[in-house]
């Protein structure tokens, strides 16, 4: 079981910088998610940890050791591919046994360990069947079991759940969490699905275009995003982000949006902006859950009115797309009376508003809540 230190790693492919100056500290036994959109460099980062690629600059240490001179087969790193890469011409047993067989372990040991792992993964009844005859979900479990059985120092998973159907994904999320606790392994998990990251990881590293945006515990990243990208990316449904110019008229601050909508900025948000160095353009962020209809809750809350354009149902809740003077807001509410075409009054909870600098995307002000 290893800790990992990624020290100022950059990876370039010609002129293109896939990863820029990445610094990440992963403790032993931690479950860390590398989260970001397609092409952000998270898979490249994982490949560098696995040793499949070498950093152009910087180094990656395992428990303080540099493994760049060790051959891949000697690194003992567990890797679960996105498409599983199980040995389809071998039986399930032989698949699970591969890592042990190449280490020339005695036959009884192999048998014992394979049977135990098969039990653990729910594949005991498939041991003698060819791996190609398994369902996709079983292949997933086989891929994990095959890597886990050799007790690697770290475990890398490349979007392992993306090929599964939605119901099984939820089930596997829970399974993975339990497995990780059981094996106590350091796990690094690449995904573009922030729900997965939020529910599984101890810490999330959010990456955009090769750069680390924020690294912290799920709730920390959710409640205190340090920049606009993180605020937008984490949280489902996505955070409302309204861009506009800050105008100060007669002591009261307003956010003026191109479409003509004006949002009064007061209370904490106003203070955040004022304390930040003078900035003209900014983005106001508010999560759909923090917009509500009906009666005013706090005097600071910002009132707006608009037209409900579309209503989606998300499990027990409704997601309303409300347009106020050309600016679109998403609001989540449980009540049924939001119907497309109706005019509504809605409020932005002032306590939960966040301000982001228009130029750098940095969050203005201190921690929320």
């Amino acid at each position: 079981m290893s800790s990992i230190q990624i020290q100022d790693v950059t990876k370039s492919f010609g002129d293109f910088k896939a990863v820029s100056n990445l610094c990440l500290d992963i403790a032993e036994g931690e479950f860390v998610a590398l989260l970001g959109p397609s092409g952000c460099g998270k898979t490249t980062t994982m490949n560098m940890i696995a040793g499949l690629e070498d950093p152009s600059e910087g180094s990656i240490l395992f428990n303080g050791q540099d493994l760049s001179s060790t051959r891949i087969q000697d690194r003992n790193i567990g890797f679960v591919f996105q498409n599983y890469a199980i040995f389809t011409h071998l039986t399930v047993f032989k698949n699970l046994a591969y890592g042990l067989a190449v280490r020339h372990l005695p036959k009884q040991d192999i048998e014992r360990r394979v049977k135990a792992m098969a039990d653990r993964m729910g594949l005991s009844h498939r041991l003698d069947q060819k791996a190609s005859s398994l369902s996709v979900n079983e292949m997933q479990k086989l891929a994990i079991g095959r890597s886990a059985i050799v007790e690697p120092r770290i475990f890398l998973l490349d979007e392992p759940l993306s090929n599964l159907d939605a119901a099984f994904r939820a089930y596997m999320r829970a399974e993975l969490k339990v497995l990780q606790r059981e094996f106590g392994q350091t796990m690094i998990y690449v995904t573009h699905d922030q729900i997965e990251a939020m529910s599984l990881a101890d810490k999330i590293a959010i990456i955009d275009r090769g750069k680390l945006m924020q690294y912290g515990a799920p709730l920390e990243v959710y409640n205190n995003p340090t920049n606009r990208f993180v605020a937008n990316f984490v949280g489902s449904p996505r955070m409302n982000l309204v861009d506009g110019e800050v105008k100060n008229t007669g002591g009261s601050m307003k956010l003026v949006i191109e479409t003509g909508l004006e949002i009064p900025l007061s209370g904490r948000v106003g203070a955040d902006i004022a304390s930040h160095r003078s900035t003209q353009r900014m983005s106001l962020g508010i999560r759909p859950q923090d917009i509500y209809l009906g009666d005013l809750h706090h005097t600071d809350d910002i009132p707006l009115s608009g037209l409900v354009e579309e209503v989606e149902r998300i499990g027990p809740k409704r997601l309303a797309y409300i347009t106020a003077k050309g600016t679109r807001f998403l609001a989540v509410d449980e009540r049924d009376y939001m119907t497309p075409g109706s005019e509504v009054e809605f409020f932005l909870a002032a306590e939960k508003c966040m301000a982001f600098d228009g130029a750098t995307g940095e969050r203005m002000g201190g921690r929320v809540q």
Partner: protein
Amino acid sequence: MTDLISDMVPLDSTASESPEGGYWYRMSRDGQKLGRWFVAPTVLLLLFIVVFPLLMQLYLSLTWWTPLDGTRWYKAYESFNFADNYWRLVTDRDLWAALLRTGAVIAVAVPLQFGLGLGLAYLFIDDFPGRKIFYSIILTPMMIVPAVVGLIFFLLFQGTGPVNGTLGLPANFSWLTSVDRAMLSVIIADTWQWTPLMFLILLAGMLGVPSDQLLAARLLGGSNWQNFCRIILPRMKPVIIIALVLRTVECFKIFDLTFIMTKGGPGVATETISLFLYKKTFADLDWAYVAAVGLTILFALSLLAAGGLAYMAKKKG
């Protein structure tokens, strides 16, 4: 005209190397009918070139006919002899000796070419600078007319030739006229010419092995050799069968090299079956007998090829 495509079947999420779904389709009956018209000319041609001479051979093989008889071949029924020719080939010492010699060539040449081809192919899996150039160079021997290859090696293996010169051997160290080394020279020439084919086929087979499975094997701790034996070779089984059957059948028929390099000599030291039949046909004019032998060999080789195919079909299913 109705649609030519009739049935789309999606691959569902069970049991597939690529978990994502897809559609494949069969030709409708209309499409198949049209297809038959397109294929017809080629089939007719094949029938004429292959089937007709075969039947003619069969006919002749049951008679005593030779061109010296003075009658037309279709009148051969006059000297009908049932299966006398076939009996003869079973007891013909010279024939069996030739067969044995051919067998010896195959036993040495095919594994040799296979091993070399496999080794070369392995080196070519990953890209390296100059890969394309080396690839073309390796394939060149295959492109040369076999008779020319024979000529090349004939010259090379002369007593006063470059081989002896490079190895520092005296001019009376003979290759082509030595009973022991004549066969060896032929095998060397054949290997030089046909290893590239093995290389080509086996490389294609190797490249068909999914690279991420190989990667997974490496990450699990498998060394290059272990991964080669456990992952690459097993997955190449169908390709290996094809390559071996192909080469074996071709090697069996070896003619150009023996004819040009040694003419079957010294004596009959390198008289392979093809050469034997050649002499019987053009020197002895024993056409009916040759027909019988030819058909028997055809039958035997077909069994071999069919066996290979059956084995492959079983593997696929």
